[in-house]
């Protein structure tokens, strides 16, 4: 880890995703990555954004959990580059992401087994765990 960087994870309600992301976009945060972790009966999603320069080196992750079959809105209207992450998450984890601008309809990964990363063994992380 680095002393020069601030990393934070903020848990949000899934319904607040677009408004939270819109605020970060307005403040010119850069999309760093979208992380998905399969969980029993659903998945945990973390949307990471970064800043640098005069504002300091920061990475903020917005995290929420969705149950299986729940639709997650796409953020491609705000961050067009998110289409690759969202297609990947849908193909590998089976998370339903709707209205992706650049929807490959399940063709990003040509895998032998559908949604191979979908898990049933992982327990949710406690909010006290935080990032180290």
């Amino acid at each position, binding site marked *: *880890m*680095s*002393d*020069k*960087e601030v*990393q934070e994870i903020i848990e949000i309600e899934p319904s607040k995703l677009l408004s939270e992301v819109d605020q970060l976009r307005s403040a*010119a945060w*850069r*999309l*760093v*990555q979208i*992380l998905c*972790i399969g969980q029993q009966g659903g998945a945990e999603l973390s949307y*990471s954004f970064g800043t*640098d*320069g005069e504002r300091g*080196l920061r*990475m903020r*992750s917005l995290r929420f959990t969705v149950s299986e079959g729940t639709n997650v809105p796409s953020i491609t209207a705000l*961050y*067009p*580059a998110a*289409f*690759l992450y969202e297609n990947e998450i849908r*193909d590998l984890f089976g998370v339903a992401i709707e209205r992706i601008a650049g929807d*490959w309809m399940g*063709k*990003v*990964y*040509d*895998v032998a087994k559908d949604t*191979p*990363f979908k898990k049933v063994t*992982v*327990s949710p*992380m406690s909010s006290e*765990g935080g*990032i*180290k």
Partner: protein
Amino acid sequence: MSGENQGAHAPVEENIRGPSVIPFGPQHPVLPEPLHFDLILQDEKIVGAVPQIGYIHRGLELLVEKRDFTDYVHVAERICGICSFMHGMGYCEAVEGVLGVEIPDRAKWLRTFWCELERVHSHLLWLGLAADAFGFESLFNAAWRTRELVLDVAEETSGGRVIFGSAIVGGVSRDPSKETLERCMKALKSVRGDVARLSHVMLEDPTVQHRLVGVGTLSKERAYELGAVGPMLRASGYDYDARKRGYAAYGEVEFKSVVETAGDSMARAAVRIREIEQSFAILDQVVAKIPEGPVSIPIKGMPPVGECFARLEQPRGEVVYYVRSNGTRNLERFRVRTPTFANIPAMVEAMRGASLADVPTITLTIDPCISCTER
């Protein structure tokens, strides 16, 4: 009126062709790895491109559940054969973050040494491939011949030419002596001379300029908006280099990000070439400043429940590693967001407005690594 002259008097709309779609890849002479684009063309000009990956996805991230967390570093290193050391090291950095351990100073400096050595050989590999893409085969041969000498140094210091195998959780597994490091730097002197000559050809030759200047331009604003990283971002004028986080020994090394402003293929080439020279300067500092001492700490027992993100600057740009531990010796999740994955949207944007003949050049100046992307 007879119909013999109808073609000449046909409505204008009928004489205009609609867009055509040309497939590019996954097998193509300039692509050493499978990547596909559906190029949408209006005459010879590209108006859009639809990328396609996933031909060789290996599911290496999933393997972390079946390997001991200290052994998995060998898998992480094999994500890619070009930035292998940095993959292994990035995994170790994230695991060490979960463990809450600080590795010895000498290990930090040695990691910095191998990172920069890897950057040099990666950029020389790219230089050869880029030259080959626009038909400059003698430059391709010269760049790869020079790269061999860098690999010799990697072998002498780490034991491996491509897979270094020297990153371990808790430090590094090899400890080259100061004499060895100084001897290696002496050997690299001829490489520096070669790089200076190759750089002159790449940046000054009018035929190269004809193929690269003004081709595949990406503005600073669009590069940032599309999440571009590494030389792709810095060539468009945005100053961001993940080494500024100060991981390994970068906090104690003096260097400035290499930034160009034109945003075209030549600017991306210039950033990488100047970064080779910068890496040599960092290597000099490492050999001069590296402290004596142990190179690893013992890692015993189970990792605690926890998670950690680690960000590194690979030759192709920022890479993000994530690990989550459940308190056993098998981690629950390992994730890599590779720089090529992040650069694909920017690559598509850079192709818009270019001619079909420039696609290989634009693709190569982005330096895609599909092996990383298909982790």
